[in-house]
């Protein structure tokens, strides 16, 4: 077996099938590598809810802006969050209005900053899935240890499994899933066994090189065509069947699950993680956003895009009123947002 063989196979004739890549980084790699252009038109790749930025509710952005506008408070955020629209404006626009927003590469940076500027309080905008969640727990641990009182956590943390369950339960057109590679590093490849069994869909855990993805697609196509539904770990260099036990313990020790609102989708039971009783004092008002269902009245069809029901170019606003320069929905904003990726990497 080699790459040429796989390419030839995938370009050949196939039954109609839809494969969802859950993770936005996979979506991005698929486009950067021009993988769609290498596949038979029968093999459709559709993009799942795997962009933590895209699923963050508007009310979360509003709350983050509120902190950033409060004197002596600084909001620390990853760069991707800057352009996500809140109900009034984005963090980038708020910053232009005088809000104090600093971009971080790692939440660890909060510790140094907080120690150096005791008169300021740093609110970390904690978004992410299981890959990122342990890193917030590590910051809390160090905050406790160092006695710093000027770090707070505004969380919009999401669990992948309940979302996948939700998709499997509501949509039957998806034939197979490319499981998110780095989330799987934490959760382990065996985490998908339950879904595979219950919904009889194959899962392939994949890495992020073009070859990784082609291998996963090949595997899933073969599984579907042969009516198999197994979990295949095709990223064994970093994904173990049982995942990262230390990281999972950190998640369990600091957070508890609860319902959460996924932008464009709605509330999914048990899909959010919140600081538990013991660490609640570090929370910057995240729990109040748990039941949030507020949404700008807009025709944005992000929900359907995230669930893989439509492709971005089926949204009437795509590329017309909705572009990365003036995003109408979060999927157009993020580097990982499906609409944004489609816009940037395809064109007449």
């Amino acid at each position, binding site marked *: 077996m080699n790459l040429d063989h796989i390419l030839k196979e995938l370009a050949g004739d196939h039954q109609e099938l839809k494969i969802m890549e859950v993770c936005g980084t996979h979506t991005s790699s698929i486009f950067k590598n021009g993988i*769609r252009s290498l596949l038979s038109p029968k093999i459709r790749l559709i993009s799942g809810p795997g962009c933590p930025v895209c699923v963050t509710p508007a009310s979360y952005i509003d709350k983050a802006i509120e902190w950033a506008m409060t004197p002596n408070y600084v909001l620390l955020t990853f760069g991707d969050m800057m352009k996500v629209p809140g109900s009034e404006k984005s963090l980038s626009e708020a910053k232009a209005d005088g809000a104090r927003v600093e*971009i971080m*590469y790692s939440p660890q940076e909060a510790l140094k900053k907080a120690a150096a500027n005791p008169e300021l309080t740093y609110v970390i905008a904690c978004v*992410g899935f299981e890959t990122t969640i342990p890193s917030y727990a590590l910051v809390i641990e160090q905050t406790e240890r160092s006695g710093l009182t000027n770090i707070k956590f505004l969380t919009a943390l999401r669990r992948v499994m309940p979302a996948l369950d939700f998709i499997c339960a509501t949509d039957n057109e998806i034939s197979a899933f490319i499981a998110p590679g780095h989330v799987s590093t934490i959760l382990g490849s065996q985490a998908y066994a339950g879904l595979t069994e219950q919904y009889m869909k194959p899962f392939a855990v994949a890495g992020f090189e073009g070859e990784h993805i082609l291998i996963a697609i090949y595997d899933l196509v073969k599984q579907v065509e042969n009516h198999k539904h197994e979990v295949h770990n095709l990223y064994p260099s970093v994904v173990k069947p049982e995942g990262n036990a230390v990281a999972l313990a950190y998640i369990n020790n600091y957070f508890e699950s609860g319902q959460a609102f996924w932008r464009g989708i709605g509330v999914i039971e048990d899909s959010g993680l919140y600081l538990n009783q013991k660490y609640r004092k570090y929370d910057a008002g995240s729990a109040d956003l748990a039941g949030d269902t507020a949404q700008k009245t807009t025709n944005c069809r992000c929900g359907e895009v995230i669930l893989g029901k439509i492709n971005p170019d089926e949204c009437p606003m795509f590329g017309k009123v909705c572009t990365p320069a003036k995003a109408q929905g979060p999927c157009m904003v993020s580097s990982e947002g499906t609409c944004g990726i489609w816009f940037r990497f395809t064109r007449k």
Partner: protein
Amino acid sequence: MKIVMAHGSGGNATRELIKDLFHKYLANDYLDKMEDSAILPVSEYPLAMTTDSFVVTPLEFPGGDIGKLAVCGTVNDLWMAGAEPQYLTAGFILEEGLDLDLLDRVVASLSRTAKEAGIKIVAGDTKVVQGNGGLYINTAGLGFRKSGRHIGTDVIREGDALIVSGDLGNHHACIMSQRMEIVNSIQSDCANLGPMVEDLLQAGIEVRAMRDITRGGLGTVLNEIAEASNHAVEIEEKSIPVDPEVKSFCDILGLDPLYMANEGKFLCITAQEHAERALNILKQNPLGTKARLIGSVTETGKPLVTVKTRLGGKRVIDVLYGEGLPRIC
């Protein structure tokens, strides 16, 4: 010693600053007259004029500083139009709190770079604003198109070759590394492109157009070229030169070298039949050893940039949206 507001008063403190610091490095017959304008001799060539402001932080970085940058940036824009740089103006906006020793080093560097580039600083200005020790420099350049050759996007035609003079993203990665305190050995590529351009022109290479690959990166420059010339261009992903250290830096922060700025690289569009020779000329220059033929102009009337990927796929290269910020996903 630091810059205080009085240095911008126009009075004694301003005069002392100019006399003690700027004059030390920038003195020449034109500037020393200290009149409201410099008077320059009559020229027999078409004039080329350009300007840029430089707002980089930190002010000093591996491979250069804002003074060197301020000269190279404007000198390069003149060369890109096929014009030989002659005269430069320099406007300094100093923020209160700016360290005077730092300013001294920057002005020394600016002076040195200008001398090496053969451009004379004929007018200057200094202002002081409230702030935190920052410094902005604007330079405007005047050059003469002595070759008489027409160089511009309007003469680009189907089949022309695209050459990049070296590795992408070094300046940008260098600056971001400094700001984020990431330790590496990446240096800004900040440089005067003049010698390379002169070599190409003197060798009679049919140069259609040139662009220095600055803010917005190669991705943006290619789109500008495609739009201005109304031609499609296609490049090969695997021919895009990026240093592994820079590539890795980009991966860490989720950035794309295609959109990262250089300050000493340019895109050169030549007639296809001159491409090999142009490439060889560039490679002989110390700044051009990594020059690569990256693609060609493929179609008239369709301003689109595409890339053939490593795996044989094809995709569009759009301009940069938003800023290149470190991202989690």
